[in-house]
């Protein structure tokens, strides 16, 4: 008699009851939904920020310059092109911000001694974002950048002509003319140097493929630690020593570590607050409907099935609130990120399903206790009254 179709009809009726309860009591739905949505908004908003802040700070830290330096392990040794290629290959591409070769030569200009540095200007801009250039960065062969101290001492500025003299690898004298394209200030020893492109330097000295050191800038948020990466480089390129720039990296890692704890703490607090907010809402909802629970039990509903219906409603409410809250939370995080860091943020897509799941779980959990209490009451007690 109780065919498959009839039983399916029963299930459909149960499901419809849940939907009717939510959508025919629109004002109640709105109240409960608002509670859940606010919880989810705060949760996703803060978690997004928590994800974002270390990234933003990482970016800020990187503007302090390179955090690894590659040199040859014997004194006076130079790095070959092969060494650099091997080192570059050993570093995780996702964490490598830039790798800049430097070659130093003693030169003279108007009888005075200077240090000329051959480098890649594109790379320098990545590993030393704090360099400030007045005028232009060199863009063509024969263009040079002078440190601000050199500029002050000699009066050289953008557009000036500069002649560098010296002896090449075979001790033959050379003399080469450059145009100064800009003046660089770094606030450090670099202000006393003259910068030319590595190609110009190699042409001048007649010696190519060798550099004195390379500066590497790496991100540490996510992935390998600096020590791991240094180890990888030394294994892949024998004879190369990867030194960590201690001053910057230490502070970066300490601050990051502290921030990670802060992230956990904030998430925990927010989760607790969300839980309280949602459970208060669900408590009100359930208490308001004690009579209905009493009636269903009077009609012979088992406590289990009444509880299931209410928890089903909670689940639906949680999912709906989680979706709405996710949308609102991303907006909230955007506004905060913009006003604090002056940058937009890339929303973490995977946080949305997490938020929806958490919100659904919290709503169901929060309903559990009040539903259990309502279901345990004797029907006569709740059916009386008013």
């Amino acid at each position, binding site marked *: 008699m109780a065919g498959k179709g009839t*039983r399916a*009809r029963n299930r459909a*009726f*149960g499901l419809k*009851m849940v939907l009717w309860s939510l959508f025919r009591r629109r004002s109640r739905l709105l109240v409960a939904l608002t509670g859940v949505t606010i919880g989810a908004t705060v949760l996703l908003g803060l978690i997004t920020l928590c994800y974002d802040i270390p990234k933003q700070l990482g970016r800020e830290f990187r503007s302090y310059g390179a955090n690894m330096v590659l040199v040859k392990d014997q004194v006076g040794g130079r790095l070959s092109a092969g060494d650099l290629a091997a080192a570059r290959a050993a570093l995780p591409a996702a964490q490598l911000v830039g790798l800049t070769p430097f070659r130093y030569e003693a030169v003279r200009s108007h009888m005075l001694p200077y240090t000329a540095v051959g480098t890649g200007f594109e790379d320098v801009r990545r590993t030393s974002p704090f360099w400030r250039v007045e005028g232009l960065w060199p863009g063509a062969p024969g263009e040079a950048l002078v440190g601000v101290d050199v500029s002050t001492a000699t009066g050289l500025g953008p557009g000036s002509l500069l002649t560098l003299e010296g002896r090449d690898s075979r001790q033959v004298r050379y003399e080469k003319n450059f145009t100064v394209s800009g003046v660089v200030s770094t606030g450090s020893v670099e202000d006393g140097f003259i910068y030319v492109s590595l190609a110009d330097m190699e042409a001048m000295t007649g010696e190519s493929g060798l550099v004195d050191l390379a500066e590497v800038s790496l991100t540490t948020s996510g992935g390998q630690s600096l020590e791991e990466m240094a180890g990888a480089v030394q294994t892949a390129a024998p004879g190369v020593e990867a030194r960590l720039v201690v001053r910057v990296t230490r502070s970066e890692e300490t601050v990051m570590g502290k921030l990670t704890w802060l992230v956990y703490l904030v998430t925990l607090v927010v989760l607790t607050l969300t839980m309280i907010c949602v459970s208060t809402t669900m408590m009100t909802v359930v208490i308001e409907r004690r009579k209905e629970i009493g009636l*269903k039990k009077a*009609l*012979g509903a*088992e406590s289990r099935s009444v509880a299931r219906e209410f928890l089903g409603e909670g689940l639906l409410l949680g999912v709906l609130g989680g979706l709405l809250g996710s949308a609102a939370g991303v907006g909230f995080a955007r506004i905060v990120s913009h006003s604090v860091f002056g940058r937009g943020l890339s929303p973490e897509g995977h946080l949305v399903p997490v938020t929806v799941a958490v919100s659904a779980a919290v709503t169901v959990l929060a309903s559990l206790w009040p539903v259990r209490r309502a279901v345990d009451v004797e029907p006569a007690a709740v*059916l009386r009254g008013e």
Partner: protein
Amino acid sequence: MSDNILDVIDVSKIYGPVKALQNVSLSVRPGEWLAIMGPSGSGKTTLMNIVGCLDSPSLGRVILDGLGLDQLTAGELTAIRREAIGLIFQQFHLIGYLNALENVMVAQYYHSLVDEAEALEALAKVGLADRAKHLPRQLSGGEQQRVCVARALINHPKLLLADEPTGNLDETNEGLVMDILHGLHRQGGTIIVVTHSPEVAQHAERVVVLEHGRVASDSRGADFSDPSGASQTA
């Protein structure tokens, strides 16, 4: 072992200083139609709740269909309500977000299986075929009461407990509801009706009058020719 469907044995229900029921004893035979009368506050609803397994007595025992209710678990009491009892509530207790038809179907849902056609037919019997899709707040008091009647009878209960089933009804609709009760009675159902109305009580085979939580009189058949007589004056 009695063959009564219901034995209420020396039952009292005490709410702090209020004694809602005091040493009430009552036996009902299968298929009997009983009316309970008495002034407001005399304990009629309290007694119905106890017999209907919605509440338990402070003292005394209730034996329903051979089972001592005090020995049963909450789950077993729920099963009795579901399988054997139909309840018509004094305050209707319809679910606000379900329409009339769905309110009747809820009883089917928890009892066994929903059957929309049957539920619609039950509504038609109480004269509400054209109100099936209305929500309770769109129905008059009398209409809500009739939905409650349809819901109580949809699963053909062995024992119908009706608390003021006609309190809000005009003569025509009262007639409709009484016809339905007669139908159940003919099929062998046991009926206990709480009422203030002598006309409704007249349909019963036996009238019990409660006063201050005690059984003041218990009269059958011929004795009950004048319901507004001695037993009615509180």
